[in-house]
């Protein structure tokens, strides 16, 4: 094995981890935003409190997405080019959702007008919900494989399908799974960071959603087994099955803490672990592909045919080794300093 192969494998793993961290962090922002119409329907005080919970963090969380995107571009340019252009329309919609969510959640506080704030809230809720669905559908499509084929005429990996192909029932289920997963995750975070009525509502509703989430999660795992070719790696090295198993255990643990004595902090921690292991289960299942083709093996983008030069990967690894732990350290510090427990009765 040459060093550039080793580097591209390292970056493959980091790529998966970056996505997982993004889901864990922005997941609670999305989740809390999706709870707005239910938990914050009755009072502006409660809605403001919910925004205050995620306010200092959503932007820093979103940078993980930008980094995940940037790393895809830098480490696997061909995969970035093929994935983003093949999924052009859904990605553009995702982009618009993220823009509206970000702008509306910040600018809503600049003008104290009922209708203005109502429109902003609408943009935040819709933007978050649609973004989450799209992320779930997109990743399920990756797990299932895209209809890709190398085309001699354009010298490009062409997408042989249409938008409807992306809406396979399995992928739609992925969208629903993401919504439910982030509802639970965001509900837990909200419960962790609030007191009084708001906390009660958050926990009560999260408890109501959790069983549905868990059923969908199990169904998704089974369907991944049945419909997506994701389990090859797990059959060839069964030790890896510890990962999806750990994922299930962590989600069960999260549910256990949610119901039994309502230890929200612990439940949230387990939920973070669950999201991490779920993402990694998917990503490692695809290995060595970043974008598997479900048409022909030669249409897949993998760590060999899509990766940057060893030199670039090496330089980026040095940067990542220095800066990613630094970022994690100051983000945790900032989180401790800026997180407040909001009390609304």
């Amino acid at each position, binding site marked *: 094995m040459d060093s550039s192969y080793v580097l591209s494998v390292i970056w493959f793993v980091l790529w998966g981890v970056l996505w997982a961290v993004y889901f864990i962090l922005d997941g609670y922002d999305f989740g809390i935003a999706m709870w707005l119409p239910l938990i914050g329907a009755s009072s502006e005080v409660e809605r403001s409190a919910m925004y*205050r919970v995620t306010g200092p963090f959503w932007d820093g969380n979103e940078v993980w997405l930008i980094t995940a995107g*940037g790393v895809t571009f830098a480490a696997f340019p061909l995969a*970035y080019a093929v994935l983003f252009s093949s999924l052009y329309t859904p990605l553009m919609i995702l982009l618009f959702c993220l823009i509206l969510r970000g*702008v509306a959640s910040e600018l809503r506080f600049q003008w104290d007008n009922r209708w203005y704030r109502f429109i902003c809230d609408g943009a935040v809720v819709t933007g978050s919900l649609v973004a989450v669905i799209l992320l779930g559908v997109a990743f399920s499509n990756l797990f299932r494989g895209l209809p890709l084929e190398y085309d001699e005429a354009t010298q490009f990996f062409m997408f042989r399908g249409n938008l409807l192909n992306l809406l396979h029932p399995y992928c739609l289920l992925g969208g629903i799974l993401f919504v439910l997963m982030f509802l639970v995750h965001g509900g837990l975070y909200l419960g962790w960071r609030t007191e009084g009525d708001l906390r009660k509502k958050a926990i009560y509703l999260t408890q109501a959603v959790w069983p549905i989430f868990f059923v969908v999660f199990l169904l998704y795992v089974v369907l991944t087994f049945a419909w997506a070719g994701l389990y090859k790696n797990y059959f060839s090295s069964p030790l890896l099955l510890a990962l999806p198993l750990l994922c299930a255990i962590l989600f069960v643990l999260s549910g256990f803490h949610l119901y039994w004595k309502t230890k929200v902090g612990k439940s949230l921690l387990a939920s973070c672990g669950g999201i991490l292991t779920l993402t990694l289960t998917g990503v490692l299942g695809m290995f060595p592909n970043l974008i598997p083709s479900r048409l022909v093996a030669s249409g897949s983008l993998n760590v060999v045919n899509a990766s940057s030069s060893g030199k670039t990967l090496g330089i980026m690894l040095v940067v990542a080794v220095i800066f990613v732990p630094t970022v994690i350290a100051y983000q945790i510090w900032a989180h401790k300093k800026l997180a407040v427990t909001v009390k609304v009765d």
Partner: protein
Amino acid sequence: MDPVILSRLQFALATAVHFLFVPLTIGLSFYTAWMETKYVRSGKEIYKKQAKFWGRIFLINFVLGVVTGIALEFQFGTNWANYSKYVGDIFGSLLAIEATVAFFLESTFIAVWAFGWDRVSKKFHCFSIWLVAFAGTISALWILLANGFMQNPVGYKVVDGVARLASFTDVLTNTYGWHMYLHTVCGAFVLSSFLIMGVCAWHFFVGRNVEFFHMAFKTASGFALIFTICSAIAGHQLGQVTAEHQKSKFAAMESVWVTEPNTPMYLLTIPNLTEDGNLVQTLPVPGALSFLATNRFDQTITGLNDIDPSERPPVWPVFASFRIMVGLGCLLLAVAILTYIIKSFVPSLGWGLWIYILLIPVPYLAAELGWMVTEIGRQPWVVFGLMKTSAAGSPPVDWYQILSTLVVMAGIYALIAITGFILMIKAAIKGPDDTAEHYA
């Protein structure tokens, strides 16, 4: 319809709107940091009020810069797949490093600043806005080095039909990128100081908080003077680098057609609409253009006649944008010099104060025009001399997909940019006594 044209329109829209918010982010963060430093050192409340007032405008501007920035990173992949495939090894890594090194810092510590007034120590609070300011300029550096690679590719070798990194040092020390960086950052300070002066002028005009705003005005007039001069010098240097590395762009900027030593500068030039020569070309200053471009009168400047028509940029937009940008820059320089001299009397200028209010959009326009010179002047290349823009698009994407997202994007950007500017104006007009906390 040609998908590449549509993609270019879409990218132009996205970058142009993004760049409405970038310069103020860079300039105003330093100004806020400077005021807060004075507050920490002197303990005087007025400096804290300054930091809070300008910081609030900064925050509104910042969020718009953030969200419009995400679009750009997506668009390289969605609309410029062949470009991404070709330069990802170099260009992609610069973007990824920018996010890791600078953007995390900026977005984490801006929250510390906005939410941390009573949660971190005074000194650390001040330190966080310095971190934001510092991160903003670092961010700009990585982005402009990435853009510098498109203007003047260095440190690469072409392997299997794609550009691969040969020397990271060469990419990081790209003269072109650094010159763009200096000109851009100076321009950002110019824009910010004129915005500050304009807002102050409004308050002088209505006669509210005059003392408070006069303090800001005096500081801003100093910044304006220094940075209009620096920006002009950096712009001149960038012009020379352009003349050296991008002969076609330079020729289009000046609409030079004939290659000759001692190239004169014609004080009045009007290019033909057919882009094959000049309609009017009169009042020559002998050798002036050669001297401006190379510091020597006898040097030869390549004219457009000696550049293959398929490798020429469109002359009119580049020529006109350049001229108007330089004209506006000179106007700002003149106002900045004059203002610095009369800064003590400015509050009593009466209706004359409207000059400052009306000048607020001028540096915005100059900045946008500067980018048009840079990017339209780079055409027909996406990577100068290496890859044509026409070959850079996304093979799987159809024109109607691009058209529809272009329309939606235009709508959303208009909506958020207008809302953002209205809210900034509202915050600017309100004055410093509205001390409502963020998120109230």
